[in-house]
């Protein structure tokens, strides 16, 4: 069975090209565009039949190789020398890439060597820091922050608002109603609600009930749906 190196083993199309050259013992400088293109395309095709993902970079390189190949096959034109030689360009890229690849081999050795000795984690010096910082500075900082917070809260408050709700007092209203009834002896219930103010109406009603409870006034209604009258307790007879 043929041993197949998949595309995942290469870090890129340049790597694959280097592999193909190495396999045939061809120096980079002696690269044969026609042959390498064929090998490269074969390889890519094989990958595709194996259902492996061929990333776009490999396809770009394939296209470049085909273009180069067509250059090589075409009869040499006079102005060809002035243009960049794609083959030279490719050789340059391959050499440069190979240089770095060689470095990585050395890096790998260094990596292995370094793996053989260890240092330990940095000691936790934070308890130190907390003592020198927290006790003196941090508390002050906290207090200052809190003070600032309070100051800000103060500023956030609405500017001296006074919601002017007129306050009614039950005793006040008791006296008022009491004196009205004493003066006029008999007052119609409706008459006492002379202001259309919820608080006023409530307190008036409460006051009437209160006075009635204290037996200072009497509430009279002669019949259903008739007017309600309030009379002074003392003045009422029968």
């Amino acid at each position: 069975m043929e041993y197949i190196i998949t595309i995942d083993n290469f870090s890129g199309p340049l790597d694959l090209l280097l592999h193909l050259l190495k396999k045939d013992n061809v120096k980079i400088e002696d690269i044969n565009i026609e042959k390498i293109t064929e090998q490269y395309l074969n390889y890519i095709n094989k990958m595709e039949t194996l259902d492996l993902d061929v990333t776009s970079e490999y396809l770009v390189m394939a296209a470049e190789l085909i273009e180069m190949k067509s250059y090589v096959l075409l009869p040499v034109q006079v102005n060809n020398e002035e243009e960049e030689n794609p083959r030279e360009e490719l050789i340059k890229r391959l050499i440069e890439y190979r240089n770095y690849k060689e470095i990585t081999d050395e890096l790998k050795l260094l990596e292995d060597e370094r793996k053989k000795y260890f240092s330990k984690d940095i000691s936790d010096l934070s308890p130190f820091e907390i003592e020198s910082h927290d006790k003196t500075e941090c508390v002050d900082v906290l207090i200052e922050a809190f003070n600032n917070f309070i100051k800000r809260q103060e500023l956030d408050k609405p500017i001296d608002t006074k919601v002017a709700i007129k306050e009614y007092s039950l005793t006040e209203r008791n006296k008022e109603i009491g004196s009205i009834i004493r003066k006029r002896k008999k007052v119609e219930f409706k008459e006492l609600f002379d202001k259309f103010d919820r608080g006023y109406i409530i307190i008036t009603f409460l006051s009437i009930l209160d006075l009635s409870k204290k037996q200072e006034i009497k509430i009279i209604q002669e019949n259903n749906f008739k007017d309600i009258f309030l009379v002074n307790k003392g003045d009422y007879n029968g």
Partner: protein
Amino acid sequence: MDKVLEGLLFLVGDDGIELEEIMNILDKSKEDSLKLIRELKTFYDDNDRAVTIECLGSKYKLVTRAIHYGYYTKLVNNVEAKELSQSFLETLAIIAYNEPVTRSQVDEIRGVDSSYVIRRLLLRDFVCEDGRLDIPGRPILYKTTSKFLDYFGLKSKEDLPIVEIESKEEDEVDIFNSKYKEDV
């Protein structure tokens, strides 16, 4: 004073300590500090202690000896040395030898898109951003970190393996110039 130095190295562990910091803490000159470090290292080596001092990424660290490596791995059940894959290594190499460098410059040399690899290297703290290149698009420049040097057991960038990349650069310049001369 060498005791304090030993203690310092013990405390800083992985993070390591730079020469300057040692100078500040011990209140010693550069020469005296270096001498102390050297003496302590010699003491460790001569007395065959379990630990020694290494300078990694320009930071001094207290490390165990490589010869004892085999014993220490017995602490772990499944020894599987995780290594950086080829694409990570070559990307690191390209950045290290050309830094500061943009992603597209790395892409060009590798012939593949390197954004994923660079992102992973950033996450692992092997490379970091180093400003932006002043060309349209203002691409981010990358350089290797002290952790990168430590990972490969290197004291500084000068310790990187020497490869003839210089000649290649000259070539590039020549072609660049000649090409434009011909165009004119």
